[in-house]
């Protein structure tokens, strides 16, 4: 048996490209359904895990999925709710409320407006530098820092053309005060600023000196600046510095300022029930969303689609397997002379079969090994699955 494998191994090594092609084919046939299953299972686990750590959301009436995807995974946009909703929750004393503004992207990376409590809530700590201290400061998620190639002390310009939404945004030169430690969640792939910084970008807050209003060349500084996205670049960007910091202020009722959603964490079950009761009224402009339910529903739909996909994949795998068998059969035909030789040398039919089987077994073993390594890598780097799945959504 040892010799059979030795000879098979030598054969595979000698025809390495052919063997490698076979190996990859077999691996793929085996791994694709597993990978799909893995992506879905892990993705579901990760998405549910995050949803479970986010007991409730307050979002605008409309699509609960949009609000959940926007507030939890920074995908999609959702109609805004008023910041003042946070007071309704906080004054009840039943829950902690965290606003999240997740409407924009900066260099294709989600830009999140949050309060410092978000870092506590998601257990985000700076690996380098500090959390944002002032308006105009930002901190980068681990993967965002890698993608941007920026670090502590660098500046990140939010020119309007970088944004998801082009209209009416003040370009701001953000100071990077820190880079967060990796958490292997979507939190790694965002840029975080104080909520007030996003409002300044939206023109709801502003400074008074000329330097701070450069981005708003038309009309009064008190109207929402109308910038020209095409010409607004880094040079026009407003920079908040210690010198002009005090000049920045906000007008109007801050409670009516927009946020994407408010994360609500009830202190206990009783508080949850009481608070839930307050949002039963369907005439309210907002509603209480349970992300777990939303994600379960989404995943249920995805799994239904995946069943169909699995069927197609099974068909394709079957066809590929038949093709592989054909390849083996042809290869045996090509090797007939060689097989005759070893028979002439004194080897029985069974040994020939054994040699061929050893080859097939080796290919299968190696393919299984290759597939396992790939799957293990996917499992280990499970953090990347949720974004993959989310992007697919």
């Amino acid at each position, binding site marked *: 048996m040892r010799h059979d494998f030795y000879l098979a191994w030598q054969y595979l090594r000698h025809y390495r490209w052919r063997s490698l092609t076979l190996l990859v084919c077999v691996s793929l046939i085996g791994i694709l359904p597993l990978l799909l299953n893995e992506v879905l299972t892990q993705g579901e686990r990760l998405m549910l895990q995050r949803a479970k750590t986010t007991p409730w959301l307050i979002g605008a009436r409309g699509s609960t999925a949009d609000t959940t995807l926007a507030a939890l995974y920074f995908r999609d946009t959702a109609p805004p709710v008023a910041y003042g909703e946070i007071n309704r929750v906080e004054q009840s004393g039943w829950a*902690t409320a965290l606003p999240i503004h997740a409407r924009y992207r900066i260099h294709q990376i989600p830009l999140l407006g949050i309060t410092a*409590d978000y870092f*506590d809530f998601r257990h985000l700590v700076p690996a380098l530098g*500090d959390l944002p*201290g002032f308006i105009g400061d930002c901190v980068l998620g681990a993967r965002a820092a890698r993608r941007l190639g920026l670090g502590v002390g660098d500046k990140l310009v939010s020119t309007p053309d970088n944004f998801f939404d082009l209209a009416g945004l003040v370009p701001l030169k953000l100071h990077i005060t820190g880079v967060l430690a990796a958490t292997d969640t979507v939190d790694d792939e965002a840029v975080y600023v104080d909520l007030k910084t996003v409002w300044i970008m939206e023109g709801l*807050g502003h400074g*008074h000196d000329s330097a701070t209003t450069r981005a708003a060349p038309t009309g*009064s*500084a008190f109207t929402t600046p109308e910038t020209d996205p095409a010409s607004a670049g880094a040079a026009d960007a407003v920079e908040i510095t210690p010198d002009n*910091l005090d000049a920045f202020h906000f007008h109007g009722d801050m409670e009516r300022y927009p946020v994407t959603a408010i994360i609500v964490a009830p202190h206990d079950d009783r508080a949850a029930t009481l608070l839930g009761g307050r949002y039963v009224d369907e005439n309210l402009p907002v509603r209480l969303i349970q992300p777990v339910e939303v994600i379960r529903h989404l995943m249920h739909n995805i799994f239904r689609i995946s069943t169909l996909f699995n069927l197609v994949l099974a068909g394709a795998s079957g066809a590929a397997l038949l093709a592989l068998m054909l390849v083996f059969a042809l290869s045996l035909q090509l090797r007939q002379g060689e097989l005759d030789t070893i028979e002439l040398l004194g080897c029985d039919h069974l040994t020939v079969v054994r040699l061929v089987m050893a080859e097939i077994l080796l290919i299968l073993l190696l393919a299984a090994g290759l597939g396992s390594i790939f799957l293990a890598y996917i499992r280990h780097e499970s953090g990347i699955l949720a974004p993959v799945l989310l992007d697919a959504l």
Partner: protein
Amino acid sequence: MNPEFSLRYCSMHFESTPAPPITPMLRTVFTLLLVLSNLTTVAADNLQPRLTVVASHYPLAYFAGRIAADHADVHLPMPGGIDPANWRPGSSGIRMLQRADLLLLNGAGYETWLAQTSLSRARQVDTSSGFSDRLIRIEQAITHSHGGSGQHTHTGTAHTTWLDFSQARQQAHAVAAALGRKRPELKSRFEEHLQALDSDLARLDQNLEALSLQYQTLPLMASHPVYQYLARRYRLDLVSVHWEPDEMPPGSEWDALARTLKQHPARLMIWESQPRPEITRRLTQLGVASVVFDPCANRPDQGDFLSVMQRNLQNLKQARESISAVLQK
């Protein structure tokens, strides 16, 4: 705690109690459980790190220090000698604020830097939120202009809330409640300490209330508009100017004062700190005496919040007596 001692103590305690008949085995188990629960309580107490409390002005720091006692490190982020109302956090200040387990705020617009900083909302305690409906709005307080868009007016809120000692008591209660939420296991201890502080503040309130009776018919001037709540609570007839104790006001200000005095014949001006002697002299010439009522917004050089307030009361009392003597003459 020495576990041996504790064990013996508990056993003795157990034996001395007229207990129902329990087997020695059960007794040992109970004893061990008692010791364990005792040990874990002690351990939990010791394991909990001291709270880091940062207050935005001295009175709140004083309240927190009295209530939390040994269970918290209370910090004031600003240096001594400056008015915390004018303080802005720099990079080190912001780190101190960010590291706080509890950030005690006066509210009422006192912390203007909140709009420019990025801080935890959950750790902030607005100590004046309990009486937010009774805050005094200052109409057209600050007016400024910029660009070509003309003048722009901000409305403001009077923020020296603690000079109404009934409000100071509410703020102290808010501090105690916040500390209790952070350390529920110490709540009763905080309550005890609060009672002592509250009775001190109540006494101040009563004393000032009593003293204010003597001021009922007396028009007063204030060197700075920081005594709105003091005036409202203790029914003082107070008009403010914007004078600094270490700066001789210009002639126009003296003229304005003279005009005000015709409408409002005040015989006493209340100062945040001792004014320069030439200011005092010139005021005396106008028949206006000077008295210091230190709001004590920052840490005093000597004494504490209570002693400063007692001295303020003493100052008012003496000033009233002097005025009475002058009037009698």
